[in-house]
C-alpha cells in the first residue's frame, strides 16, 4: 500500500528531474542561435567619426651643405665675411708621361782610319791611339744634352783591321759614358790577334749600358751633345812581315736608349689636357637662369708640374653648355675680353729634381656671368701646352721618364646672386603602401626659412605612363617657403627668418589616386626674396617640421 502510494510521487520527481536536465541542455542549444544573432558584425553601421592621430614626422634643420650632398662639389667655402661659395672642381687630368713624348732615337756611327806601325822586333810593342767623335741627337737640333741617365740601352760595336800581327789588343773607351755606381768610364777590351796572317781581323760585340750615364761636356766643346770613342791598339812585335800602313774601322749604334733622367735644354714639346666639369647646381634645371653679382665667379686652374721646363698653356676650346636655355653654348674667356686664353707655368729648376711645382692661377676677369645666365650644366675645355716658350737655349731643363703634368680646373661661385623664375624638376620612383587604413590626412608643414629664397614646390603623382593622377598642392600660387627679407648692399644679409605654416589636406579620394602612382615628379620654382641680389651666409638655415594628422578608417566587416 505504501509502495503504491509512493510510486506516483517518484514518477513526478523523475519527471521534474528530466525536465530540469532537458532545460539545462536546451539552454546551450538555444544560445548558439542567439549568439549568432546578437553578434552579427555585418550589421555594424560605419561610424561617422574617425580617430585622428597627430604624429610629428620630420624635424630637420638644413644648412647649405645639406642640399649639396653631391660629389660634384668639392666643398662649400666660407669666405672671410662668412659668405659662402660653391666650389666645383674637375677630376685631376694628366698629360702624357715624358718618356712617351721625349724619345732618344737609335744613334749610329761608322768610322775608319789608316795607321802606321813601325817595325816591331820580337819582344817589343807599339800602341796606336785613334779617336772618333759622335754627336747624340734627341729631338730638335737646338737641344742641348748635358747628361743622360739611362735605365736601359745597348751599345753595339763592330769593325775590322788588316793588321797581321800575332798579338794585338784593342781597347775601346768612351770617357763620357760612366758607370752609375762605380764612376768608371765604359771600356771594352777586344782581341785582334792574327796568328794565321789572315787578310782581316774582325770584331763584333754588344754591350748593355743600362747601368751607365752619359755626361756631355758642352761647355768646353764646340759641338753639342758629343761623346768620343777612344780606340787604342796595343801591338806586340813579331817576325811577321811589315805591311804598314794598316786600316782600322769601327761602326755601331746606341739603341733602345731609355732614360731615367735627362738634363740639358730640351727645346719644344707639346702636351694637351682635356676634360669637362659638371655644374650639378643646374642638373635639374628646366628653365631660367641666375644673375650673378659682380666678380662672383672665379675660375681657377691648379697645375702640378714635375717637369723641369716652363710650359705655356692656351685653350683649344673652353665653353659652357645648357640643354634648356639659349644660347646653348657660351665660349668662356678668362684672360679678359679680346685676349686669347693663355698662361704659363714654371717647372722645378735644376736644384729641385724630383719635386713638383704647384701653380694655382685665378682668373677673375672672365665672362662667367654671361655663361651662368644660361644655367650651364657642363663646362668643356682642352688645354694645350708648349715647353720652353721663350726658346732660351741656355736654359737648363730636366725631365724624368715617368713625370707628367696634371691639371685641375675649378670654379668658385660666390653665392651672390639674384634668381628669378628659376625652375628645377626631378622624377623619383614612388610607391605608397599600407595607407588603406587612412581615411584622410592633414599634412602640416612648418617652415622657418633663414634663406633669402622663395620656393614654390609642387609634387605630381603620375602613373607608369606619366599621366598625372594628382598633385599635392592645389593652389598654384601657394608659396611653401617664403624667402627671408634681406638688407641692402653691400652685405645683402637676411634680417630675420621667414615662417610659414601650410596645411595640405588629402581626402580618401585623393589618397586612393595617389596609391596608383608609380612616380613622383618634384617641381620647384625658386627665386630670391623680391628677386633681388642676395648673399648666402654660413649661418643661414632652414628648419622644416612636417607633422601629420591621420584620420583612421574604422572598418566594419
Amino acid at each position, binding site marked *: 500500500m505504501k509502495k503504491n502510494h509512493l510510486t506516483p510521487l517518484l514518477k513526478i520527481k523523475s519527471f521534474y528531474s528530466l525536465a530540469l536536465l532537458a532545460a539545462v541542455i536546451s*539552454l546551450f542549444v538555444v544560445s548558439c542561435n*542567439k549568439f549568432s544573432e546578437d553578434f552579427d558584425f555585418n550589421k555594424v553601421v560605419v561610424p561617422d567619426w574617425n580617430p585622428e*592621430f597627430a604624429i610629428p614626422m620630420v624635424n630637420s634643420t638644413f644648412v647649405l651643405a645639406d642640399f649639396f650632398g653631391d660629389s660634384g662639389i668639392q666643398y662649400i667655402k666660407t669666405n672671410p665675411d662668412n659668405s659662402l661659395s660653391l666650389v666645383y672642381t674637375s677630376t685631376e687630368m694628366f698629360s702624357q708621361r715624358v718618356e712617351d713624348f721625349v724619345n732618344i732615337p737609335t744613334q749610329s756611327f761608322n768610322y775608319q782610319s789608316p795607321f802606321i806601325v813601325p817595325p816591331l822586333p820580337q819582344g817589343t810593342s807599339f800602341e796606336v791611339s785613334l779617336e772618333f767623335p759622335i754627336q747624340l741627337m734627341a729631338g730638335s737640333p737646338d737641344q742641348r744634352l748635358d747628361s743622360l741617365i739611362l735605365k736601359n740601352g745597348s751599345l753595339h760595336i763592330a769593325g775590322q783591321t788588316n793588321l797581321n800581327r800575332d798579338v794585338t789588343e784593342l781597347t775601346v773607351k768612351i770617357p763620357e759614358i760612366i758607370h752609375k755606381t762605380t764612376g768608371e768610364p765604359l771600356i771594352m777590351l777586344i782581341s785582334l790577334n792574327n796568328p794565321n796572317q789572315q787578310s782581316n781581323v774582325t770584331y763584333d760585340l754588344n754591350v748593355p749600358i743600362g747601368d751607365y750615364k752619359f755626361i756631355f761636356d758642352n761647355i768646353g766643346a764646340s759641338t753639342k751633345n758629343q761623346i768620343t770613342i777612344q780606340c787604342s791598339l796595343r801591338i806586340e812585335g813579331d817576325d811577321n812581315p811589315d805591311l804598314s800602313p794598316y786600316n782600322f774601322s769601327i761602326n755601331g749604334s746606341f739603341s733602345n736608349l731609355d732614360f731615367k733622367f735627362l738634363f740639358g735644354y730640351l727645346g719644344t714639346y707639346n702636351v694637351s689636357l682635356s676634360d669637362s666639369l659638371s655644374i650639378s647646381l643646374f642638373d635639374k634645371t628646366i628653365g631660367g637662369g641666375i644673375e650673378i653679382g659682380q666678380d662672383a665667379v672665379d675660375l681657377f686652374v691648379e697645375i702640378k708640374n714635375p717637369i723641369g721646363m716652363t710650359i705655356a698653356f692656351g685653350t683649344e676650346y673652353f665653353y659652357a653648355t645648357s640643354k634648356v636655355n639659349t644660347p646653348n653654348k657660351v665660349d668662356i674667356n678668362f684672360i679678359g675680353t679680346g685676349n686669347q686664353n693663355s698662361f704659363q707655368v714654371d717647372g722645378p729648376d735644376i736644384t729641385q729634381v724630383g719635386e713638383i711645382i704647384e701653380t694655382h692661377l685665378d682668373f677673375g676677369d672672365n665672362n662667367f656671368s654671361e655663361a651662368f645666365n644660361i644655367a650651364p650644366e657642363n663646362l668643356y675645355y682642352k688645354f694645350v701646352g708648349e715647353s720652353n716658350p721663350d726658346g732660351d737655349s741656355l736654359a737648363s731643363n730636366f725631365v724624368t721618364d715617368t713625370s707628367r703634368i696634371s691639371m685641375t680646373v675649378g670654379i668658385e661661385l660666390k653665392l651672390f646672386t639674384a634668381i628669378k623664375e628659376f625652375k628645377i624638376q626631378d622624377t623619383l620612383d614612388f610607391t605608397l603602401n599600407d595607407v588603406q587604413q587612412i581615411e584622410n590626412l592633414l599634412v602640416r608643414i612648418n617652415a622657418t626659412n633663414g634663406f633669402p629664397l622663395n620656393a614654390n614646390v609642387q609634387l605630381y603623382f603620375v602613373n607608369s605612363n606619366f599621366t598625372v593622377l594628382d598633385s599635392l598642392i592645389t593652389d598654384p600660387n601657394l608659396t611653401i617657403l617664403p624667402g627671408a627679407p634681406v638688407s641692402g648692399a653691400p652685405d645683402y644679409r637676411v634680417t630675420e627668418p621667414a615662417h610659414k605654416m601650410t596645411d595640405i589636406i588629402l581626402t580618401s579620394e585623393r589618397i586612393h589616386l595617389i596609391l596608383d602612382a608609380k612616380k613622383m615628379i618634384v617641381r620647384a620654382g625658386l627665386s630670391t626674396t623680391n628677386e633681388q641680389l642676395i648673399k648666402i651666409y654660413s649661418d643661414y638655415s632652414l628648419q622644416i617640421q612636417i607633422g601629420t594628422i591621420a584620420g583612421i578608417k574604422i572598418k566594419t566587416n
Partner: protein
Amino acid sequence: MKAKITRNTIIKLIVIILFLGIATPVVLAQADRSMYFLPILPNARIVNPAIYPQYNFYIGVPFLSSVKTGIENTFIYEDIFQKRGDSLYLDREYLLSNLEDKNTVNLNFSEEILTFGFKARKNYFHFRIADIINSNVTITKDLLRFGLYGNGSDYYMGKTINLSGNAVNLTYYREFSLGFTRQINPKINAGINLKYLQGIANAYTKNLDVTIETDPNDFTITAKSNIVLHSSLPGNDGNDIKPLDVFTNTGNSGFAIDLGGSYVIDEKFTASASLLNLGSINWKENLKTYKTENPSESFVFDGFDLNDFISDKEINQEKITSILDSIKDELGIIEVKESYRSKTPSTMILNLDYNLTQKDQFGFIFGSQFLEKEVWPTVSLGYTRKFNRNLNLMLSYSASPQNYFNLGVGVAANLGPLQFYLINENFTAPFMLSKASFYVLRFGVSLVFGKNGPTQIKVDEPTPEQAVP
C-alpha cells in the same frame, strides 16, 4: 546552559553579520563559486580544500576531469554597440558614457590533466596537475577615449593626456598540487593544498603610466612615462618556439598554498572559508623587460631628422626599418633582461550554507579575487536540490555592480562510478549575450568509488539544557 545558548547565537550572528557586512554593492562576478553548491563533487575542494569528498577514492578522467573557461568583464556588449532597428551603431560617446573609469577584462581557462584522491581514516589525500591560464587586463576610459579620438582630435590637441592606470597580467602556468583534508571533529574540517607552480608564459605590467601632450602647431609630442613591462615568453630569446619549450620549461618556478576550513554551526547552518592561491612565481627564463630608463624625465619627440635617413640622395632602408626602435628610443624606453616575481591571483571565499531540509540547501557566498592593483569581489546565492545520493542540481544567483542578474545552473550526477558535472555560471547569458558581463562554463568527468556518506555532518539535536530559553 544559558552560556552555551548565547555562544551559539553569537556565532550565528557573527557569521551572518560578517557576510552581510562584506557583501557591499562593490562586488563583481567571480568564477568557480558554484562548485560549493554541488556537494557530491570531489572537485569542489578546488574552492575549499576543507571539503571532504563523499567517496573513498576518486580519479579524474585525464584531461577531462575539470575543464573550465570563463570571461568576466566590467562592461557588456550593449555598452559598446547601440542597437537601432536592425543595425548596430558604434558611437564613441555612447561607448564612453557606458564605461567605468577603469574597465577590466578577465579571461581564464583551466584544465585538469590528472587528479585523484583517497581516504585514509579521517584524512583525505589529493593530487592534482592542471594547466591554468589567467588573463587580467585593465583598460582605463582615458585610454579608450585616446584610442577613439586620437591625440590629433580637438579633444586632446594641446592638452595633457593621462594614460595611467592600465595594466596587463597574462599568466600561463602548470600547477602540481598535493592536498590534505582532515575531519578534525564532527563539526570542523580543515584542508590545505601545497602547490608547485611551473611558469610557462607571463606578461605583466608593474607600471604602465604614460602622459602625453601634443603641440597644436607642429604636433610635437611631449611624453612622460613610467613603464615596466615584464615578460617571460617562449621565443623571447629570438629562437623558434618548440612544443618542448612549453612542456619542459622549469626555469620559472613558484609556490602557492590553499587553506580552507569549515564549521558546522548546527544542523541548519554550516560556515566555511578558504584562501586560495596565496603564492607567486619567479620568472627567470625567456625574459624581456621594457622599462622607462628615467621615469622623471620628459621626452620630446618632434619628428625624425631626415639627414639621418638620407645619405647620398638615397633613403637608408635600414634606418627606416628601425624606425620603431627609434620611436622607442626617443621615448626613453629600454629593453633589458630582468628576472621578476608575479603574484598568483589569490582568492578569498566565505560561505554560509543553510539546510532547509535534508534535500534542500541554500548557500551564500562572498568571494574576492585579489589582483596586483585590483580587487574583484562577488556575491552569490545558491539553491541545491539533492534528488538522491547520485544527483545534485543547483541554481544560483550572482550579483555585480555591472550586472545584478546572473543566474547559474549546474548539475552533477553519478552513473555508477562515472560522475559528470556541468556548471553554467550565468545560464541566462546565452539568451542575453549582449547584456552579459560574465560567463563561466565548467564541466568534468571523473570516476568515484566507495561512497562514505555525506560531507554534511549531522549534528545531534540539542539537549533541553542546550536549548535557548
